[in-house]
């Protein structure tokens, strides 16, 4: 027996309902089965490999070895910076897509999606061609006489940053665009009628309305950034090593599956924690927004 309320808000008793599988379930059942078989099961297997005979030795090793802790810390630091930069670049881009008219939308969408279809490896290699000492950018700067000796662009934190931001940009732009497209620009007109400057209107009206998009794109960019492997390997120096490179090293070079699996599990758990934190911030922002609106 369940208790629900009638239209006057008074509790009424309703007849017990027999459990029925919603028809929609059968539509997603193949997807669930697929995930269970090819994602959840291997994942559990990975956890099992990281705990040989129930022993937590690999986790102990991770948390007592400075190299691992440092690389994990560095991974989060780089991912956070990359996320901030990506969202900052994506924001005006998405704004132009949402409100710039059809021609601009078309050009910007093409510019965004065509590189998106090119493999990640190829894009990272392309950046080498552009950024290396004998690359296009340095050649151009030397030819124009702006610099005499090549500037070191590649194998620096800057190189990693530019590569990662470029690859993450579509993921950050698309959620922002979908949110911004729904924002009613007449609200901005109304604010300017009331005497607010464009900047004030943007800060008080447009930006708060676009926040869900900002959060969504930040979450996407951040969680993807944590797992980056090829880009920091190709465009960074060894000092810019990220955890995925260490995991690969343990599996491929050291053949230490247990330690590699434990590192992967640590990354996964920390990612989940970060995801949860983002979610909490988002909820807090939404609640604040509602209470301000008096709802």
């Amino acid at each position, binding site marked *: 027996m369940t208790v629900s309320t009638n239209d006057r808000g008074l509790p009424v008793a309703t007849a017990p309902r027999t459990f029925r599988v919603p028809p929609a379930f059968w539509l997603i059942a193949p997807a669930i089965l697929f995930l269970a078989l090819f994602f959840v099961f291997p994942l559990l297997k990975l956890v099992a490999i990281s705990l040989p005979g129930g022993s937590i030795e690999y986790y102990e090793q991770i948390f007592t070895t400075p*190299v691992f802790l440092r690389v994990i810390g560095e991974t989060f630091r780089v991912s956070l910076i990359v996320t901030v930069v990506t969202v900052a670049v994506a924001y005006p881009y998405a704004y132009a897509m949402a409100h710039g008219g059809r021609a601009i939308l078309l050009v910007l969408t093409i510019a965004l999606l065509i590189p998106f279809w090119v493999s990640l490896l190829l894009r990272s290699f392309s950046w080498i061609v552009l950024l290396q000492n*004998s690359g296009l950018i340095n050649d151009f700067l030397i030819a124009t006489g702006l610099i005499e000796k090549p500037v070191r662009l590649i194998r620096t934190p800057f190189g990693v940053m530019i590569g990662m931001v470029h690859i993450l940009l579509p993921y950050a732009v698309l959620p922002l665009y979908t949110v911004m497209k729904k924002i009613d620009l007449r609200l901005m007109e109304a604010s300017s009628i009331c005497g607010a400057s464009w900047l004030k209107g943007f800060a008080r009206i447009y930006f708060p309305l676009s926040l869900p998009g900002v959060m969504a794109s930040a979450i996407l960019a951040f969680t993807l950034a944590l797992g980056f492997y090829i880009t920091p390997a*190709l465009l960074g120096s060894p000092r810019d090593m990220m955890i995925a490179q260490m995991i690969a090293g343990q599996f*491929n070079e*050291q*053949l230490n*599956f247990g330690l590699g699996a434990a590192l992967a599990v640590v990354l996964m758990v920390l990612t989940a924690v970060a995801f949860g934190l983002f979610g909490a911030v988002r909820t807090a922002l939404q609640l604040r927004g509602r209470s301000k609106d008096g709802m």
Partner: protein
Amino acid sequence: MRNILALTAMATLLAGTAVNAADTTLTISSYGGVYQEAQSKSYFQPFMAQNPDIKIVEDSSSSNAKLKAMVETGNVTLDLLLTDDSFGLDADAQWLEPIDYSVVDKSKFIDGAAGTYRVASDIEGTVLAYNAEEFGGEAPKGFADFFNTEKFPGSRAVWKYAASGIFEVALIADGVKPEELYPIDVERALKKLDTIKDDLVWWESGSQSEQLLSSGEASMALVWVGRAVNVAEKGIKIDWTNWTSQTGYWVVPKGTRNKEAAMKAISFFTEPAQQIEFTKYMPYGPSNKNALASVDAKFKGSLPTDHLDTRVLMNADWWAENGAKVDLRFQEWLLQ
């Protein structure tokens, strides 16, 4: 619908005849690219011509991690794999079948090429390659010059892998005799590497090492000899004063159903005729001592086996025992 049924039936029949034509299918995994093509031309195809009952199916790219996972899960789909110095030692016995020396003639190999679980396929090397245009006619001579950034300025490209030979190179440059390298004095090597740390550029794939040399990013590099030869026309030369050993080995995963055929194949692949044919396509030397004198003229002089007297032989057993620890120290040093 009827068409589909007919097609399926035909496909099944065809598959059936394919299986009947060869009794045994031997699946071999190598490193792909021009290297595997060369092996296919000089090893695999002649073997199939001589043994019509054995069909070779090629797979790439060989990986020690994959072999280990395959044996551990009891799903052995590869019968013969190519591996590097770091694998196939006594420490890896749990994943490998011992080489059957009643099928493979142990006496035909050069020193160190025939182990309990592995047999050398070819003798490779990591060499000091340099851009001849960079140093105004001067040429580096030996590992000490690799550390001489005054006389030979520019970036140095090195494989980002602790057991790549970089520790050996640093110690020899620091005055250690090749026969006294082991046990490796890790801290001494890192101290020596500190002197050129800002000039070091790390590569993680063979193609990347070629790119660094041919683009002029690096004026010197420690690269696999095949990669150095590939960019020879871009003015890249090899200094054979010192070089570190590197070897391609055949190994047979434990539990394969085609062990006999695999041993037979190893025996055939390491015969002089096949190994000499291989030197037509790749600058890697033969492991069969009876093939050494008759290698093809194409890469004569660029084959590691033409320079065995200056080879710094790496101690794979020492690395097997200490590799994990040294790797962590190496990673830590990289981050500093």
